[in-house]
């Protein structure tokens, strides 16, 4: 069965390592923070200028001057630092963030990603997404494998305007964990109970299926 949003977040959380600085995009990526493995420390970077994002505040500690990149009120953990947007993107662009997790509309076999613009629909802007995908070495894209109407989001060539070119190597969908190698998607893991045939069918870009594709495991 396809993964729930929570399971997707849980699977991404397995990629966290102790001491990682992580930027989590809006949506499913945000949920990853709920599944940091016991005893492991990660620090969340929010691109508006906060390293060490904490939980939401209480009514009492709510502060208009303390928000995250999603414009939600947040708190800071002990050991946090706060800085300007230029410094924040120096961190991002300079490759200092260990892991970036973000959503997308499409990803293709060349590691291109489209996530910000649907032509003829009103465009709200790319925010920090282009900087994030250009700056990070280690990016995980989270999205559903196909659209509601069944169209694959894993393509030979992205059809939408790009957010970044050749920068994606890892994709987690509700059906599979895939890595992009040499112009192909390589199926690394499948969601529990999801058949390889279903994944094949819903992957438009070239897919390499190794002899053995393990099912994902959740603690």
């Amino acid at each position: 069965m396809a993964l729930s949003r929570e399971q997707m977040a849980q699977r991404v959380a397995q990629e966290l390592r102790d001491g990682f600085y992580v930027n989590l995009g809006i949506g499913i990526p945000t949920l990853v923070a709920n599944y940091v493995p016991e005893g492991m420390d990660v620090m969340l970077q929010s691109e508006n200028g906060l390293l060490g994002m904490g939980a939401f505040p209480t009514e009492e500690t709510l502060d208009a001057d303390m928000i995250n990149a999603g414009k939600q009120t947040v708190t800071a953990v002990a050991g946090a630092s706060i800085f300007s947007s230029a410094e924040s993107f120096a961190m991002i662009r300079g490759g200092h963030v260990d892991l970036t997790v973000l959503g997308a509309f499409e990803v293709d076999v060349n590691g291109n990603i489209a996530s910000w613009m649907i032509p003829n629909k009103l465009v709200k802007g790319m925010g920090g997404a282009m900087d994030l995908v250009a700056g990070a070495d280690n990016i995980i894209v989270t999205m559903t494998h196909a659209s509601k109407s069944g169209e694959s989001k894993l393509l030979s060539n992205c059809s939408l305007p790009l957010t970044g070119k050749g920068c994606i190597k890892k994709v987690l969908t509700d059906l599979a964990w895939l890595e992009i190698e040499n112009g192909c998607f390589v199926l690394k893991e499948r969601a529990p109970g999801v058949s390889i045939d279903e994944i094949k069918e819903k992957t438009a870009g070239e897919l390499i299926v190794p002899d053995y594709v393990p099912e994902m495991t959740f603690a």
Partner: protein
Amino acid sequence: MAGFDKVVVSYEEAMSGLEDGMTIIAGGFGLCGIPENLIAEIKRRQTKGLTVVSNNCGVDGFGLGILLEDKQIKKMIASYVGENALFEQQLLNGELEVDLTPQGTLAEKMRAGGAGIPAFYTATGVGTPVAEGKETRCFHDREYLLEESIIGDFAIVKGWKADRFGNVIYRHTAQNFNPLAATAGKITVVEVEEIVEVGELEPSQIHTPGIYVDRVIQGSFEKRIEKVTVRS
């Protein structure tokens, strides 16, 4: 003599010299750390044909959004224009020009403008619509875009505390684009919650040295929150 005393007492004086067609760089991220009273003064003045450089354009009825009501903004340079009905309408009508710029590139353009760097290279936006019409170039086998800096006729900034010399510190994440905007204005105006004695701010803890600041005014702030999110 006035020396380095930059305090002005009225918002009218704070924005004096603002003219139709000028470029304004504004600090703030969403509604956090925005110079809300300076924006209100721009509305009061009814200055038209403005180019506004800011990460966002406020919301309907608050922040930079209020400058849309009387069509004061001709062009917006921003990374994310947000949920703003008036904005959408003016954009679709062709009344508003929008130059979408990646957030990090926007921050760096302001910083470069203030620092006398006319242009820099960044990997951000290579291969995307942002690269259209821009030069690219390889360094160490990677492709980068040439991006030019931004300078404003005015920079409008929201600080937490300032002294009369224009030394400013920001509070929490209300810092965001403010110190960058402060460097990139031909005239930089900072509104703050509190004006403190000269010497009260620790020199090595000042975010914006007074050399960047032309006018300081103390205001009172609504500080509207866009998305109140609390834990139970």
